């Protein structure tokens, strides 16, 4: 399974009613890739992610998620290989505790209780939620609640992680944790497909930009080629700074830039 391409869309056509949203769209996402799905409102970004999760099925063409053709299959048939963070995480929270909420998915997949426990504890630890494990999700502040939903998408160690606006409404601390977790998942070979307006987050954790326009992919390029070189996609502050300091190619995150910029301003030398 590890060798399978996480996501392949071939000549996909899809519409709601008479309104066509995607037409002749092809896209391939390889293991370990981080793809930012960009484009105007209504360009079909969320629709594309739904096709990947078998929440919708193409009217023409085919979608293969982690080696499985989605045609004739349901989203629950992909729960073991793909994780999906919905734009509105409140749409799924129901359990009495954070732990039970996150354990719901693995339990549905029939994992043995010790394995469930271990996976839940691991992901809660990674997201800094360990101390909230016994609390009710709705007793947590909104941003933390969104992290619970993310934990639920991550707990099954998906080969394909789909994120719809993962940082909307998050505070800075939570954002840093999400970035770290997503990068770690990619390092293990999982592909990440994110719809996001947060270009700073995208620049930190993703490296490929796919722009949707007029029902298909109009641009597919390294993210850094797009940011700051297109009026719709200005360079976020850290990327802007890194470029102007000649640190082209360094991941524009505080964690990676800071060690390169440790010299005190008095000395004026750059230990790059």
């Amino acid at each position: 399974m590890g060798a399978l391409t996480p996501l392949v869309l071939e000549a996909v056509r899809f519409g709601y009613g008479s309104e066509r949203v995607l037409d002749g769209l092809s896209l391939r996402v390889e293991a370990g890739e981080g793809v930012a799905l960009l484009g105007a409102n209504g360009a079909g970004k969320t629709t594309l992610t739904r096709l990947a999760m078998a929440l919708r099925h193409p009217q023409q063409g085919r979608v293969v998620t982690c080696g499985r053709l989605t045609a004739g299959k349901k989203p629950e048939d992909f729960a073991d290989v793909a994780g999906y963070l919905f734009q509105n995480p409140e749409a799924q929270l129901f359990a009495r505790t954070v732990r039970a909420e996150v354990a719901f998915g693995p339990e549905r997949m029939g994992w043995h209780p010790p394995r469930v426990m271990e996976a839940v504890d691991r992901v809660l630890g990674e997201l800094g939620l360990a101390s909230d494990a016994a609390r009710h999700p709705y007793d947590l502040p909104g941003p933390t609640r969104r992290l619970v939903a993310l934990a639920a998408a991550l707990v099954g160690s998906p080969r394909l992680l789909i994120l719809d606006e993962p940082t909307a409404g998050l505070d800075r601390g939570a954002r840093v944790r999400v970035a770290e977790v997503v990068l770690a998942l990619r390092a293990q070979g999982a592909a990440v497909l994110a719809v996001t307006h947060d270009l700073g987050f995208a620049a930190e954790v993703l490296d490929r930009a796919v722009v949707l326009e007029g029902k298909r992919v109009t641009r597919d390029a390294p993210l850094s080629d797009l940011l700051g070189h297109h009026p719709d996609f200005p360079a976020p502050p850290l990327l802007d700074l890194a470029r102007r300091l000649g640190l082209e190619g360094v991941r524009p995150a505080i964690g990676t830039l800071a060690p390169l910029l440790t010299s005190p301003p008095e000395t004026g030398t750059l230990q790059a």
Partner: protein
Amino acid sequence: MSALEMQGVGFTYPGESAPALVQCTVHAESGAVTWLTGALGAGTSTALLVAAGLAPRHTGGQRSGQVRTLGLDPAGHSSPGSLGGRVALVLSSPATQLSGIAETVAQEVAFAPANLGWPRERIHEGVARALAILGIPHLAGRDPGTLSGGEMQRTVIAAMLVLEPELWLLDEPTSALDAAGRALMHALLRTEAARGAAVLIASEDTDGVAAVADRLIVFEAGRPVLDGRPDDLLRGDPVWNAGAASTTIAALGRAAGIRAPRALTVDEGVAQWAR
């Protein structure tokens, strides 16, 4: 007289043991933009609700201390009373702030003035003006429920602007806005202050503070611990020690071991490191 005077205010939500505000003293002046920031749960949101009188009138719970909003105790005045239409409140999730009965953006913006019984002509003029200021006259006929997050946020702000409030209370009002929307919002806050309104904004996104706010108040554990010019506070260490955050570039500087005062913007950052 200040537009808002909170003196030694304590507040505890019902069903919670820990207080959300403790001995909280805040004064906000008309004609100025006052920015509140702090870690998650530091009390800035609660302070705004107390200022609006919604806590405890709406939330229940226990309040202590003195609060004067536009000279009145807000807990004693329901909205159609003397504070109705004089105080604007904008929260972070625009979808929950729609009236629920408007089929168009124009109706949405007209909701509050109509409730207050304004004459029709004044409502129509006010709506047109508010939509123009927020840059959304083209949305006037759209169904508010189908707007994007950013468009909805602008609509919600227009729906408050139409009242020409004397006091603005904004809690993370730019969460769904892109860079352009944020810039427009910041300019609007300055205009409102220039008109003579008192503007209080609570946000942990401090990247835009220095350009917008006259004053920065940093909350920690339910009370203000720092109060000063944003430019001074954000460059130093105390803001971090209070659990709050400065700008992204200042955060990078701090992580890189740069000593205060630190650069706040990209331009300053380039100067700081490229010297």
